[in-house]
C-alpha cells in the first residue's frame, strides 16, 4: 500500500505516493521524475545517488522515501541549469572531470557539500570527501583539480 510523501525538491513542493519500501532515490526518480539522480550500486558504496537533504549529504538509496517527509532535498537539477551552471558544474567541464557522466551528479553534490562546510579545502580534504564516490572512468585526478579551482575562486 502506498503512503503519502510530502517533500520539497529543488525548492518545489511535491505530494506523491510511495511504497514504504521505496528509497528516496526511487521517490525522486520514479515518483517525481527527476532522473539526474542515478542508481548504480544499491548498497551505498558508489555515491551516484548522492543528494542533499536539509543541507546534509545523503546517499538516497540508503534512505527510505518516507523518511524525507517534510524535508527539503537538493538534487543535481537544482544545483544549476544548463544556461546557469553552478561554478562546480562549470569547473567539472573545464577541468575534464566528466567522462561517461553517470557518477557526475553524485560527485558534484559531494563537492558542493564539501565547499559549503569548508570553502577552502586542501587536496587531502577533497580526497576525503570523494571517498564515497566511485567513478569507473577514473576522473578522480581531474575532479580534484576542478574542486580546487572553485575553492581558489572564493579566495580571489
Amino acid at each position, binding site marked *: 500500500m502506498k503512503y503519502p510523501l510530502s517533500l520539497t525538491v529543488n525548492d518545489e513542493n511535491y505530494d506523491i505516493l510511495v511504497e514504504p519500501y521505496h528509497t528516496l532515490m526511487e521517490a525522486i526518480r520514479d515518483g517525481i521524475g527527476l532522473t539526474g539522480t542515478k542508481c548504480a550500486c544499491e548498497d551505498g558504496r558508489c555515491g551516484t545517488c548522492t543528494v542533499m537533504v536539509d543541507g546534509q549529504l545523503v546517499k538516497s538509496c540508503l534512505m527510505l522515501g518516507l523518511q524525507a517527509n517534510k524535508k527539503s532535498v537538493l538534487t543535481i537539477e537544482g544545483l544549476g541549469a544548463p544556461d546557469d551552471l553552478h561554478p562546480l558544474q562549470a569547473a567539472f567541464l573545464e577541468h*575534464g572531470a566528466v567522462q561517461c557522466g553517470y557518477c557526475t551528479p553524485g560527485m558534484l553534490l559531494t563537492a558542493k557539500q564539501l565547499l559549503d562546510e569548508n570553502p577552502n579545502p586542501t587536496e587531502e580534504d577533497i580526497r576525503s570527501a570523494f571517498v564515497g564516490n566511485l567513478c569507473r572512468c577514473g576522473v578522480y585526478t581531474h575532479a*580534484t583539480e576542478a574542486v580546487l579551482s572553485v575553492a581558489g575562486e572564493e579566495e580571489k
Partner: protein
Amino acid sequence: MAVVGTSTKRIDGIEKVTGTAEFTTDIVLPRMIHAKLKRSPYAHAKILGIDTSKAEQMPGVRAVITAADLPDVRLGVLTLDEHLLAHDKTRLVGEPVAAVAADTPEIARAACEQIEVQYEELPPLFDPEEAIRLDPPVVLHEEYEEYEKLLEIADMDERPPNLWQAYRIRHGDMDAAFKKAEDEGGHVIENRYATGYVHTACMEPHGAVAQWSSDGSLTLWAGGQSPYIARDGLAKALDLSPSKVRVIVPFVGGAFGGKLTVKEGAIAAALARKARRPVKIILTRAEDLSATAARTPFIFDIKDAVTKDGILIGRKVTSILWGGGYSGEGILKPIFSTHLYPGSYRLAALWVDSYGVYTNRVSGGALRGYGCAESAWAVETQMDIIARKCDIDAVELRINNLLTEGERTAITMPAHAFSAHECLTKCADAIEWGTPSESLESPWYRGKGIALGNKYSFAPTASSTELKVHEDASCELRTSAVDLGQGAYTILTQIVADEFGIEIDQVKLVTPDTAITPFDHVAGSSRQTFHTGNATRMACDDAKSQIRTLAAPKLEADPDDLDVSGGRIFVKGSPEQSIEVEDLFVVEMLAGKRPADVEVIGKATWEVTASPHDPNTGQGEEPMAYMGHGAQAAEVEVNVETGQVRIRKFVSAIDVGKAMNPQGVEMQNYGGGCMGIGIALHEDMCFDANGEMTNASLMDYKIPSIVEMPLNEYMESIIVEVPHQHGPYGAKGAGEIVVVPTSPAIGNAIYDAIGVRIWDQPLTPEKVLKAWKEKKASGNGSG
C-alpha cells in the same frame, strides 16, 4: 581557427553536469512495464522442466517467457553456442532460464521466484587445465560440432571437447634460438603467469527498453557500444529482418568492452512482444557483476631465449584463456592476445599455442585492452626479469630489442609510426628512471617499475557518416559512433568544425539511431577517432564538393577553383569573390528551382580490409588497422608487515599520432591508469565451490576509489605524437593502450621495492605478504 588539436570542452558536458543527460536507466514510456530474469542457481545442470503457471497467475504479471517462447537459434560473436534463455542445459550460475514482465520490478522479481525449474545437477568444471584435456571430466557443449562457426581455428589431430579456440604462431626456428642461447652463454628464462577475473563494472548497469510498433517493428533503447551489432543480434535472436529493428543509443554510463551485445535487450523485446507493452529491463548490480561477461583469466607459460647481451632471439608461449559457459565476446582473445608476444620487439623466432576453453563460470568478454592487457602482464614482467638476469638496465634492454620503423613484427604487422622508443624514454625521464627511490622508514619500501605496451586496432572494419549542411551554414553529422565517455562525439565535432572552418557550436551531432545514422562498426578496439574520424573527414569533403558544384555557376568559376570555409564559398586566391553558403539555399520553388539543388548531404564510407591470419602459423598480410604504443611507469610503496601496496607516482606516456583533444588524451591517461591500478592490485571476482560469485557488489568487488590514486602532483600524463599515415590528421586511438602496461609496471616496481615477484594478478596484500615471508625464509629473492 583550428579546432582539432585543442582541448575543446566536451559537447555532451552540459547535459552530464546538469543531470539532463538521458541514460537508458532514465527512459520511461507510457504503459511501460518492468522485466526481471529467473537465473540458474547451478553452474552446470540439465533443465528437465519449467513450470511458469504460478508466476503467470500473479496479479500484475503481464508476460512470462522461457526458451520455448523464443526462436530456437544459437547466438554468439563467431561461434554460435548460446541461447538467449537456457534451452536444455545451464552452463553457469546466473544463466537466464526464464523472464517475467510485470507492472513493477518488485512484482516481476517475486514472480521469478514462483517459477519452478526442475534441474538435474551435473558435475561442474572450473579448472581450465582440466577443461583442455582430451578426456575432460565433463563436456559442456556436447553438440559443439554442429554449431555454426564463422572463424577457422588451428588444425588439431583431435579437438579437446571443451576447446573453442586454438591459434598458433610459427615464425622462425625455435629450436635454434634456444640452442643458441644455451651454447653461447645466454639465458633461457621460463615462467608461468596468470591474470585474474575482472569485471568492467560500469557505473551504469546493463539495461534496455523495448517497444514494438503495430507494423511488427521493434525499437530498442540500449546504451551499448554498437547499435548495428545490437540490431543484427536482435534480428537474429527474434527471427526478424534487420530492417524491422531500430536501435537507439542514449547516453552510455561506461562500457569498456562490456556492452557489445544486448542480450537483456533481446529478452526485454521478447517480453514486450508477448505483453504488448513497452518493457524496461535494468540489471541489478549483483546481476551485472556476476552474470554479464567478464575479463576472464589467462594462464601464460612463456619461455624466452636471450643472448648474454640481453637480445631476445626466441619466445615460446602456451596460453589458455579460461573461458566460461559460452565463447561470447572473448572469442578472439586467444588470437589478439598474441599481438603482444612480439609487441614492439624484434623476434627471430616466435612459437605460440593459444587456446580458449569452456568452463562453468561466467563467460569471457571484452574489457579495455582485449587480451593485450593480459599478455602484456607476462611479456613485460619477463622483460624486467631478463634485464635483471643480464644485468642491463630495464629501459636500455627494451630499447636494444625494439623494432625500427618499416620492419615487420613476428606476426607480420608493419612497424609504422613506431613510437615505442619515444614513449619509453619520455616515461623513464618523468619517473626519474636510474635514480633509485628514496629509502623509507620500516616497514615501508619504495621502488620503481616501467613497462611498454601496444594495442592493435582490429580490421577488417568500416565506418560510414553523413554530413548535412544547413541553410545557416551549420553542419549536422550523422554517425553511429558511440560516446561511452571517451569523448568521441567531441572529437568528431571538432573534425567537422575544422573541415568547414566553423565554430564548435555550429556543428550538431546526431547520435546513434539505426533509423537515421549510417553504419559504424563499434565503439571498441580504440577505433572511432581513427575510422569514424576518417569517414567524417571524407563526408565533409563530399559535402564541400557538392557545395562547390552548386556555387560554381553563381561565382562563374570552375568548382575546382572554389573553397568552402567559415560559411562562405570563395574563389581560391581571390577571397573577395565569394558568396555565403546560405545563398545556395534560396529556394525559388515556384520559379522552377528543384529541391535537389538545395539538399547538401555528404556521405562517406571508410573501410580497412585485412585478411585473417592463417590460424596454424599466425602469418599473413597486415593483420590490423594500426598499432598503438605506450609506456607507463609507477613508483610504489610496499608495507612488508601488511603487504599493502600504494602507488606513489604514476606516469603514462602514450602515442596518439595527433592529439585531437589533448585534455581528452589526459583523461584517458589518468582514467586508464586508474582502471589499470585496480586490475593490478585488487580487482578480483571471487567464486565459491559451486561457481557462484561471492563478491557481486561494489562494496566487495573493489574498483579503485580516489584513495588508490596518487596525489595530483604525482600523476603525469605524457602525449606522444608520431603521426600515422592513414590516421585522420595522423591520429590513432587512445582508449585501450592506457591500461596495457599498467600491471607489469606496478609488478616490476614491487620487485624493485622488496625483491619479490607475484605471478598471478591481482597483486593483493595477502600475496605480497606471502611472497615477502617466503623470501625472508629462503634468504633471497624469488624473481
